[in-house]
């Protein structure tokens, strides 16, 4: 009888596990996935906390990836991914940051040779805990040989993370249904950092890059609403991410000629091209700048714009725009854009010290 029960249970389990969806969709708000380092280190509470935001380009550094640059590769070897992650881990350890808001982290993607980058980074840095939220999760992407993908946003912390949540942002409104089904599901991930005596929230966002409609505006608004709710609940926050938007006082707003892979790819008379022309979006961050404190103020940015650029596409090493930000409802000091890390990703890490109040 027990054997029959065991066999029946085994088959039912296999049936259920066999029903994993081809493409994973998400609730409006759901729990983020928690990780922890193999070895937990003890950290006391601090009065000033070092916070970093970094889009790590799924650990492929400046290699010629085909889909976000002009490269001819989609699958990057494990050795190349590990080499890139070693550079990222070294930077995090050298700067001794306490909380990292990371975007474009792969946990089970063929393109990055299935390296679980969350666990790898936890084990190789001083960080103890991670809260991960997928933005792209599918057993197969039927294009360009991309194959299986699970990529998303990550909060890393030296202190324990509680209440990890994944907040779904609106899907792109300018795609057909089939493309939208297999496309990115952008999100904001939040978690309460349980620093002894002063818990606070960490908020990490990666907003749409290529939408040609008002999806990005909705994402910025959704991100700000989450920040507003945290403040209303009586907590402070450190927030940031790759907002794929330029500051309102940026002197250049159209990069479409610079971003074209070969001369003639871009024609200004064509329909609006997403991801390179920010002209109509130039004011979209005003609400954030008006209500919260940035790590790099608009005045600092105006004085030396070049010094605060955080991005250049693909293998182009000349940084030419700022897309990455840190925000808080209290105050920052020592905000820095680490342009020495230009070879480690197509985005540059920003750090700042958050003054605990």
């Amino acid at each position: 009888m027990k054997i029959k029960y065991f066999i029946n249970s085994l088959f039912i389990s296999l049936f259920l596990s066999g029903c994993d969806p081809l493409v994973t969709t998400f609730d409006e708000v759901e729990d983020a996935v928690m990780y922890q380092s193999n070895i937990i280190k003890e950290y006391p509470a601090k009065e000033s906390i070092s916070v970093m935001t970094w889009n790590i380009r799924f650990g492929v550094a400046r290699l010629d990836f085909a889909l976000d640059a002009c490269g001819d590769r989609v699958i990057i070897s494990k050795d190349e991914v590990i080499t890139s992650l070693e550079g990222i881990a070294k930077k995090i350890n050298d700067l001794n940051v306490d909380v990292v808001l990371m975007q474009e982290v792969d946990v089970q993607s063929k393109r990055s040779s299935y390296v679980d980058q969350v666990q790898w980074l936890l084990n190789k840095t001083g960080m103890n805990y991670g809260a991960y939220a997928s933005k792209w999760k599918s057993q197969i992407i039927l294009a360009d040989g991309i194959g299986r993908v699970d990529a998303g946003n990550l909060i890393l912390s030296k202190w324990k993370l509680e209440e990890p949540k994944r907040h779904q942002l609106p899907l792109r409104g300018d795609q057909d249904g089939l493309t939208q089904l297999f496309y990115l599901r952008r999100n904001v991930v939040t978690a309460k950092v349980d620093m002894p005596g002063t818990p606070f929230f960490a908020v990490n966002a990666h907003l749409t890059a290529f939408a040609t409609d008002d999806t990005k505006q909705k994402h910025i608004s959704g991100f700000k609403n989450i920040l507003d709710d945290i403040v209303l609940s009586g907590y402070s926050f450190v927030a940031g991410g790759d907002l794929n938007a330029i500051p309102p006082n940026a002197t250049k707003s159209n990069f479409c000629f610079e971003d074209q892979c070969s001369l003639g790819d871009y024609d200004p008379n064509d329909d609006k091209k997403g991801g390179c022309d920010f002209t109509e979006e130039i004011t979209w961050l005003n609400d954030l700048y008006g209500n919260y404190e940035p790590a790099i103020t608009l005045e600092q940015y105006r004085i030396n714009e070049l010094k605060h650029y955080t991005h250049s596409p693909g293998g182009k090493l000349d940084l030419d725009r700022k897309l990455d930000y840190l925000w808080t409802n209290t105050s920052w000091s020592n905000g820095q854009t680490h342009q020495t890390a230009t070879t480690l990703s197509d985005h540059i890490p920003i750090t700042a010290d958050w003054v605990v109040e």
Partner: protein
Amino acid sequence: MRKACLFFIFSFISAQWSAESAYLIENNRKEVGFFTPFKMRINNGSEIGIHKFLLMPSVSFKQEIPMYNTWKMARKFRIEYPTPGLKWIQSPLGKEMGEPNMFSLISSQFEIPHMLSFYAQMIGTKGTVKSGQLSLRAGAGIALNGKNLSDDATIDLPIIYPRLSVYYNDFIIESGGQYFRQFTDRLYYLIDYDMYFMPGGVGRYAFEQQTLLVWQKSNKLHLSFGYKLIVGEYPFGGQAHLLPTINLKFGW
């Protein structure tokens, strides 16, 4: 073109569908299924099977050998040339990388070399279809020139991964069994399993269990449908899948 791509996938899925007993097809009879190979008896007493998906040509020979106790025995040899099919699946719509290259299952950054695989298998069958027929099989396959194929160029999907693994690992061990029984005039059922061992591969095993209900309308037409449960290891780890299966087979 999307249908052609699905056809390619289902060709793989269904390649093992045909009731694989030690019995050969009857003299002068020919069979072909939507997804299964064309089969016929040839003059020297062997059965030949030709996979009709021309981009991945495959030919098999099955021969009877002397009985072992009460088991009817046969041996089967198969040769497969996957190169054109794998090249096609890199760009089924003829698009360039990033256009996007829709329905591509292998990145076009990889070179697909000319490769061949050879399989040898022993099959033993006991019993009759009316009272229940049990068949067991075991064999191995080797590939030539697979060393020039990148280990990163795998298709990490159920059914397909183990069947192409020989080109990445150079070697595969296969075993399987099936129970086929008639339970009314026109209805049969088939319970089948296949095991693949891929020594040296990143994914090292795959187990497939299939149950089919077969409706034999006449000697010329039969329809089967059921499910296939696959539990396997892939480069990303282990996973189980449950897939529906269907086939229409014609004989004359």
